[in-house]
């Protein structure tokens, strides 16, 4: 992707976001002149950018939106919710196009139809005339040839010109060459439109948009040179069998770099992830070093003091490095929060419950992994608030509350944690009903339930399979309950809780770690249980006939590439049921620790995972041979082995 397209993506997303926010404000106060200006400016710049990268379909679509805003700004129209809706739909389409560009690295082809639809809808919203002007009736030639085009024309990107198309285009070139007098404006315009139609029939919509636009130019000389230039390029490229005719700005001379100082760098997220992984491995290497230093100490090595001092400095530096590297990977919560005003607007429409959204502290930062996993859990909390928390407008009126409910999304940094609260000013949770349902559904045995406090009862909504929805609605009833939310949050090392006050509202509180360190593990099965082996300890996995395992004293060994490696049964080491392996072949994971290799016999090998390792706590604390745990996607706990401890 070239620099221009890259910058276009970045800028367009920002502008689309600004415009969306502005439009949502305008919906409430349609005549706010500042917002009208801001949205108009954003749309205008967005359109300008599309023009710069030659994305004419997007330019056309946005032109419609701009016209609408222009009419509103000039006082000729008052924006109604339908008009705002059209603008938002147009921006949605723009965002989809941007996604396509990001994925393919090229401008989307065959999107003229989408642009046409948007333009037509804007025209309808403005009263007809604009639509006709923008879609341009193309009935110039007088002779028609109508052939059916397959609805889906694959390979349109290649857009080879048929011999007939070439002839037609060459005819336009000849026509244009003769039309040099000022009076030939009409000739030029119709030549441009004819060429546009020919190109569209070959599936070259970007080029077609290009030509169609020339027909609207005001200066005859400009139009002449533009048409000549474009057609020469199109015919030339086709003759030389160029492969991507729709991206004209691809191979331009390199840009000068006038900025002498660059304050920000745009770095591929994968490179940062690689840096984070390397830092993680460095931390593991440091741990091994700590072990050696301890050994030196117990053996009374004369190097001990020096070693210790170096090690302390090393440890300090690695700590600093880790912090700095993780700080590279932070994103503001705005990235996830900004999707909600739009979603809440839709929920509000479909439920008929008016709502105001308040967002606080969206510049709070957190690790990219945290920010990216948050959308689903937050969406669930917000849906619940809209569905079950917020009362209908008439009920709110009887309770003396404002007609429109308020949903607040708040974020704040608290030490090493990030706090996020989703609160509503609805009716609060029905504790008695939760108690009843929990009993009915056997979530908790009756006798225990009786002794639980209200807060403990409320927490039961996080229990597996619990749902208080009287009926499954389109919004909340998607088959995942709050238990899925809690699992997702705990998987990244966070916590989630609910506080409710009857009649006043509910708050869902998320506490998440600011940063996460990912560890790669390989899953293995032994004694009917799944374990994780840190991947940096795994040298290789082998499958050998059981007969090749030689008994060495009480233990066993295997010879791999002339090297004898002791083999232990992982299940027995962990005091799992020491069942005798029945299979003919033994599956052995060869692990390395402090330069020593050893084999662990397992029943099966599983997948490799990127996990967030949680240190052991509670009942498991101090379990030998286990370094930590992680929650699997299905809610099961994976114990991760400490190979070093196991082998000691």
């Amino acid at each position, binding site marked *: 992707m070239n*620099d*221009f397209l890259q*910058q*276009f993506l970045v*800028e367009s997303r920002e502008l689309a976001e600004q415009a969306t926010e502005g439009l949502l404000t305008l919906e409430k106060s349609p005549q706010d002149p500042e917002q009208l200006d*801001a949205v108009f*400016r954003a749309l*205008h*710049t967005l*359109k*300008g*950018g599309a*023009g*710069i*990268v030659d994305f004419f379909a997007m330019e056309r679509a946005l032109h419609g939106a701009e016209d609408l805003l222009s009419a509103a700004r000039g006082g000729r129209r008052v924006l109604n919710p339908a008009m705002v809706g059209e603008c938002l739909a147009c921006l949605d389409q723009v965002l989809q196009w941007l996604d396509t560009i990001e994925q393919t690295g090229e401008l989307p082809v065959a999107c003229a139809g989408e642009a046409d639809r948007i333009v037509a809808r804007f025209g309808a919203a403005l009263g007809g005339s604009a639509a006709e002007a923008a879609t341009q009736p193309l009935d110039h030639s007088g002779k028609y040839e109508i052939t059916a085009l397959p609805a889906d024309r694959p390979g349109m990107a290649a857009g080879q010109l048929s011999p007939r198309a070439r002839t037609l285009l060459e005819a336009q070139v000849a026509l244009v060459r003769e039309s040099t007098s000022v009076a030939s404006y009409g000739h030029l315009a119709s030549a441009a439109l004819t060429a546009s139609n020919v190109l569209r029939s070959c599936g070259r919509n970007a080029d077609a948009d290009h030509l169609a636009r020339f027909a609207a130019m*005001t200066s005859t000389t400009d139009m002449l*040179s533009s048409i000549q230039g474009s057609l020469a390029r199109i015919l030339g490229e086709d003759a030389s069998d160029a492969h991507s005719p729709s991206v004209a700005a691809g191979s*331009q*001379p390199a*840009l*000068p770099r*006038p*900025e002498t100082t660059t304050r920000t760098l745009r770095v591929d997220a994968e490179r940062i992830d690689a840096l984070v992984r390397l830092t993680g491995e460095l931390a593991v290497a440091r741990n091994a070093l700590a072990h050696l230093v301890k050994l030196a100490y117990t053996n009374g090595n004369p190097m001990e003091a020096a070693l210790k001092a170096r090690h302390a400095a090393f440890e300090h530096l690695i700590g600093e490095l880790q912090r700095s590297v993780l700080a590279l990977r932070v994103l503001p919560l705005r990235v996830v929060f900004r999707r909600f005003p739009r979603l809440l607007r839709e929920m509000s429409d479909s439920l008929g419950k008016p709502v105001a959204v308040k967002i606080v502290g969206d510049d709070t930062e957190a690790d990219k992994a945290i920010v990216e996993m948050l959308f689903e859990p937050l969406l669930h909390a917000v849906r619940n608030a809209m569905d079950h928390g917020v009362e209908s407008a008439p009920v709110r009126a009887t309770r003396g509350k404002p007609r429109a409910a308020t949903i607040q999304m708040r974020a704040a940094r608290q030490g090493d944690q990030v706090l996020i609260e989703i609160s509503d000013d609805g009716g609060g949770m029905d504790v008695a009903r939760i108690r009843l349902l929990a009993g009915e559904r056997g979530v908790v045995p009756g006798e225990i339930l009786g002794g639980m406090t209200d807060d403990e009862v409320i927490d039961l909504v996080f229990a597996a399979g619990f749902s208080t929805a009287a009926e499954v609605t389109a919004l909340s009833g998607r088959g995942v309950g709050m238990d899925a939310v809690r699992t997702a949050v705990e998987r990244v090392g966070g916590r989630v809780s609910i506080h409710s006050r009857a009649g006043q509202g509910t708050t869902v509180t998320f506490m998440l770690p600011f940063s996460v360190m990912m560890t790669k593990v390989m899953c293995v099965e032994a004694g009917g249980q799944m374990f994780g082996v840190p991947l940096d300890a795994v040298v290789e996995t082998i499958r050998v006939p059981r007969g090749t395992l030689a008994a060495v004293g009480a233990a066993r060994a295997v010879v791999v590439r002339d090297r004898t490696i002791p083999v232990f049964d992982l299940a027995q080491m962990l005091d799992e049921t020491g069942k005798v392996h029945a299979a003919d072949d033994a599956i052995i994971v060869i692990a390395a620790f402090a330069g020593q290799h050893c084999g662990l016999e397992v029943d099966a090998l599983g997948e490799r995972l990127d996990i967030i390792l949680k240190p052991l706590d509670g009942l498991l604390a101090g379990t030998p041979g286990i370094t930590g745990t992680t929650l699997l996607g299905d809610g099961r706990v994976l114990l991760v082995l400490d190979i070093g401890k196991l082998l000691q």
Partner: protein
Amino acid sequence: MTRKVLIVDDSKLARMAVIKALYSIQPTWTILEAGDAAAALELVQKEAPDIALLDFNMPGMDGLILATEVRLLNPGIHVAVISANHQVEVINRARAAGATFLAKPITAKAVAEFVDGVPGRQEGAR
């Protein structure tokens, strides 16, 4: 003769497009960039550019007002205001502010016509 050109637009993409156009005709010229009016005015004072290309549509101060301010600070500067808005009113206001009007999307040809029309710095003025 090497000139200093100031390009002002709140969209970096738009600045890139103008720079590309300018570079294709005058690769040796020094280019200064500003993303808003305040930065532009600061550069005009500090760097004394010979030419300024200003976007019309910017938050805060529009390109025409900025053109007037720029010329107050540096009366000898040659200013063009770039806009997609072809309204006669905008074109006339640009002229009144002593600026040339250039239509968006900007082309190398339009930039060339403008900068070629800028008279060279007179030796005696040094």
